[in-house]
Every structure is written in structure tokens, then in C-alpha cells.
């Protein structure tokens, strides 16, 4: 198909730029640790370590060597996937992240998909009936949701669906668990395990998805209103197409490009939301790992998490760049 011709050198350039960018971000984490007040050895030593430990760590890290040597050694071990060891859990940072990342990715992906499905539908419905009571109502709800902190909404959801539901002695299936991914101590397997996981997912996923959908709906509504004013919509209507067909076939196809762009833009917001949602609901994901590591002054884990977050965002941006020519063939790559 000629329309979908992709100029690969440009895409390789984008990939090369991405690698360069990621190298810069990693170097930033190295620089931040060196810029922070105090000797990095005091940051990197577990609390309670003695002066002998500090001296040993300093020579181990090569802190007595020139900064360029330190940097080269750090870069070498990072490229080998060695992000150092956690003080608290006494295991490699890479292993801690490998445990936490899938949880966050699952939470983020589920809520992103839901928020895009709901947000696109709501945005298009609003744009189709612009200025109606329904449009204004939905705009109001989405503006309020966007202004509300995720952790506050999370506490409200727990208050309603866990505590209030049990004090009103609602049926068991209507009471939702407040904390954790699974019921602690319950040895469930197969379908029962999945059902338990799903029950625990309802509150956090819905909450993240609702906040995301509010943003997506506002953006899609604006893009759709732009598109509805275009000549080709008038033509489609003039040739007698049903309004539903105009919206589905013509409008949605033209919203693909803004939606792909929004996907990359929405990711940092989802990350921020998931930090709070994981903390509130006690999910063992990246956000909670990062927050508990900061409280415990576990610096290797904090910086490792930051590097992992950067990787996710950069990969998503690259994916959006690659998808854009598919979404809108007019975009030159």
C-alpha cells in the first residue's frame, strides 16, 4: 500500500535519538546522586553502617577515583543490568524492579485501555451534541475529576465501597476489598485466584481509568469539534450518510492521529496516578516501591525506579512516533 509507505531511515534516526535520550536520562540520575548534599557513600550505605564499611564502600565504588572513571564504571555496570543492591531487601535492584514493574504495567495498561475506550466515546458523544445539557454535564464532571487528587478519590472510594458497604450490610459481592492485590492468606488457584484478583482490581483500575477518561474526553471533544467543522463532514452529510456513519467512519478515522499523540502524552499522568493508587490500595508496584524506598532512604532502588519509569515513557513516545504515519498517512516520517 503506497499510503502506508514508511521511510525507515527516519525511523532508525528516531530510534537512535531515543537511545541517546535514554543515555542522557541515566546520566542525569548519576549526576543527581553526585550533586545531592553529602558524600554519595553516606547515601548508599545502609543506616547503621560503621566507618570501616564507609571506607570499604568508597573504594568499592571508586569514589576516591576521578569522576570520569567513576562514571565509566557506573555506566558499564548499568549497561550490564547491574543497578546495585537494595539496602532494605538485600537483593539486586533489578530483581526488585522486575517484581514490581509487571504489577504497574498491568494496572497502567488496563486503566489506560479503559480510559481511552470510555474517554473517546464520551468525547465524541459530547461533540456530536455540543452545548446540550448532556455535553455540559459531562464537561463539568470531567473538569472536576481532572482537578481531584487520585489519593483523595481513592480514600473516598474505600470509604464508600468497603466501609460504608459493610456497615450497611450490603451483600458480600458488593463490598470491595480496600487493600492488596489478592486476599492475604487465601490459597487460591486457577479461576478462583483470577476472580479474587479481579475483585481487588475493581477499585484501583476504575479509579485510574476514570481520572484518565476525564482527560481523554476533554481532548477528544476538542479534536472532534475541530473535525466536525471540516468540509468533508459536510460532504459526508450532504451525500446522505446517516449521522452515526459520519461519526463512526469519517470522524473516528480522523481522530486516530490526535489519539495516538494523546497516548504518549497520557502516560506520565497514568504513572503519577498509579503512584498514589498503588500507595492507597497497597499494590506492590513501582510507585509503591519508589515511595517506600524514599521513606527508607534506599537510594539505589529510587534511582533504579526512575530509570525504569524513563524507559517506559521513552518507549511509549517512540511507539507513538512510529504509529503516527499509520494513524494519519499525511504525516511524513
Amino acid at each position, binding site marked *: 500500500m503506497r499510503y502506508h509507505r514508511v521511510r525507515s531511515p527516519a525511523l532508525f534516526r528516531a530510534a537512535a535519538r531515543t537511545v541517546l535520550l535514554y543515555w542522557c536520562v541515566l546520566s*542525569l540520575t548519576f549526576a543527581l546522586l553526585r550533586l545531592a548534599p553529602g558524600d554519595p557513600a553516606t547515601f548508599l550505605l545502609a543506616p547503621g553502617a560503621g566507618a570501616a564499611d564507609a571506607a570499604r564502600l568508597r573504594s568499592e565504588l571508586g569514589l576516591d577515583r576521578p569522576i570520569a572513571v567513576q562514571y565509566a564504571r557506573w555506566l558499564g555496570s548499568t549497561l550490564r543490568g547491574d543497578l546495585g543492591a537494595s539496602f532494605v531487601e538485600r537483593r539486586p535492584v533489578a530483581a526488585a524492579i522486575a517484581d514490581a514493574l509487571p504489577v504497574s504495567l498491568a494496572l497502567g495498561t488496563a486503566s489506560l485501555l479503559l480510559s481511552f475506550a470510555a474517554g473517546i466515546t464520551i468525547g465524541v458523544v459530547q461533540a456530536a451534541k455540543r452545548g446540550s445539557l448532556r455535553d455540559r454535564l459531562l*464537561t463539568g464532571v470531567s473538569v472536576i475529576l481532572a482537578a*481531584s*487528587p487520585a489519593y483523595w478519590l481513592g480514600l473516598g472510594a474505600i470509604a464508600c465501597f468497603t*466501609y460504608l458497604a459493610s456497615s450497611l450490610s450490603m451483600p458480600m459481592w458488593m463490598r470491595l476489598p480496600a487493600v492488596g492485590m489478592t486476599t492475604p492468606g487465601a490459597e487460591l488457584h486457577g479461576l478462583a485466584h483470577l476472580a479474587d484478583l479481579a475483585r481487588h482490581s475493581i477499585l484501583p483500575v476504575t479509579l485510574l481509568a476514570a481520572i484518565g477518561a476525564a482527560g481523554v474526553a476533554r481532548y477528544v471533544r476538542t479534536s472532534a469539534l475541530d473535525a466536525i467543522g471540516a468540509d468533508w463532514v459536510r460532504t459526508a452529510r450532504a451525500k446522505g450518510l446517516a449521522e452515526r456513519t459520519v461519526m463512526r467512519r469519517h470522524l473516528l478515522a480522523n481522530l486516530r492521529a490526535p489519539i495516538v499523540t494523546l497516548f504518549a502524552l497520557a502516560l506520565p499522568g497514568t504513572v*503519577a496516578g498509579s503512584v*498514589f493508587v498503588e500507595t492507597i490500595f497497597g499494590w506492590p508496584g513501582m510507585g509503591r516501591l519508589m*515511595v517506600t524506598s524514599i521513606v527508607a*532512604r534506599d537510594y539505589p532502588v529510587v534511582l533504579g525506579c526512575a530509570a525504569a519509569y524513563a524507559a517506559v515513557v521513552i518507549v511509549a513516545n517512540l511507539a507513538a512516533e512510529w504509529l503516527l504515519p499509520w494513524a494519519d498517512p499525511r504525516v511524513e516520517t
Partner: protein
Amino acid sequence: MSDAPRLQLARSGRLALAALVAIAAGVLVVPALSSRDPLLIQDVLARRLVPPFARDAAGDWHLLGTDRFGRDLFVRMMLAGRLSLLVGVTGAGLSGAMGTLMGAISGWWAGRPADRAITAVADILLALPRLVLLLVGVALWPPGIYTILAVLVLTGWMGVGRLVRAEVRTVRERPYVPAAQALGASQLRVLARHVLPNAIGPALVATTLGVGNAILLESGLSFLGLGIQPPAPSWGNMIAGGRDLLVVAPWVSLAPGIALVVTVLATTVLGDAWRDRLAGERGEASVPR
């Protein structure tokens, strides 16, 4: 929506402005007038967890009730508002100023090394979610208002910077710029007197919208225990203080949350209304709302 340029803010924008003025007046006046020190803890058993609109055992009336230490929530909420508004306005204002400066430099000298360096730094900072950068900042530096402000400014200037860069590049091509240069004005004078005033509108709107974001980020850090440290109240740490009281005293978390949402909502609505007015002034196709 009329076709004529709207020079006045939409009604929603004026309402939001009025709400912000009322909140600002409240946070300044209420703690100053209150008879009790909102940080002081005394007679905990008699005063703690009084529900809203009720009297405690000592006979004092509390509009929004009291927290677990018997401190009046309304006065604390207003005192917290001082910090939140201060951090929000200062944080967004300074990052707007930094963004304007960076954007002006890279837009005026577009394609030159300065522009390339600034754009590269912005790209690197944008590759990390802002909350993650903030978390790294408060992890490495001691928590407190100055750390939060510094990290907010250093992680928040890129959006405004990009806007100003694009605007400056457009304005630079207008005929009055070479005219001013022909009159012998220096580059800095042209940039400051002729280009920036015509390019600053979108930056001001983005900065207004950034206030709400900065308030949300500060309260989020304080909620996690990494921002404003108790006993100093912040809306975030007040919500955190009511986290385990959801069953017995839900008002402890509810009140500061509502204050937070109303404030952020007002800045967002104000920013949106201002953006619409700007689009109207410029005769652009008004942003569909």
C-alpha cells in the same frame, strides 16, 4: 458563542476568579483572627474528633469539627491553604518565568547552540514523569518547602518554554522587529521590548493552568509524607492525617480535599477562560469549548 472577539472573561472565568480571591482572603484572614493556635495541642480527650457544626466538651464551636488532636479543622485548613497557595503560585510563577526566559533565548537564537542545548535539556526532563522527578528530588534533598519549590521550578519550565519558543519564532518575522533593529535597538532590547510582550500571552495562560498542577503535586508529596512536614498543615498531609479515620471521622479527610479540589478547579477554569479570551483577541478560530 458570538463571532465578535470576546474581550471579557467568560462568566465561568469571572466566577473562578472570584472564588480564588475569596479563598486567598480566607487563608489570610481566618488564621489571623482565630483565637486558638491551630498548631497547639491541648486537652485532647475533650476536644478530639468533634463532628462539624458541633461544640466540644470545653464549649467551643467548630465549623468543620476537629482532628484527632482536638485542633480546629477549619482554621488548620485555612492555614494549610496559605502554604498550598504560596507553593502553587510561586512554583508555577517561577517555572513560568524560567520557561519564558529559556523559550525566549531558544526562539530568538533558533538553531544555534544555545537553542540546541536548551531543547535537549527539556527533552531529557520531559522523558521522566514530573512526579518521578519530584520524588527523586525530595529523596535526595531534605524535605521542606524550599526543596519542593526548587524541584517544582526545575521540572516545570519545559511546557512554557516550548510555547514561548514557538511564539518568539513567529513574532520575530513580523515587520516591526527589523524596524526596531534598523532604529539601532540592541538585540536584547528588541527581544525584551518588542518580541516578548507580543509572545507572552500563551505563557501566562499556561502558567495559570500550572498553578493548579503545582498545588496538586505539592499536596500529593505532602500526602505521601515527603512534602510539608507536620505539625505544619498542608492540604495533602491533612488528608493523610484522616486516612485511618475514614470510618469514625470522615470529615477530617473530606474538608481539606474539598478545599484542594475547589482551588485547583478554580485555577483550571480561570486558565481556560483566559485562553479563550486570548484566542478571541487574536481573532483566531476560537477554541471549541
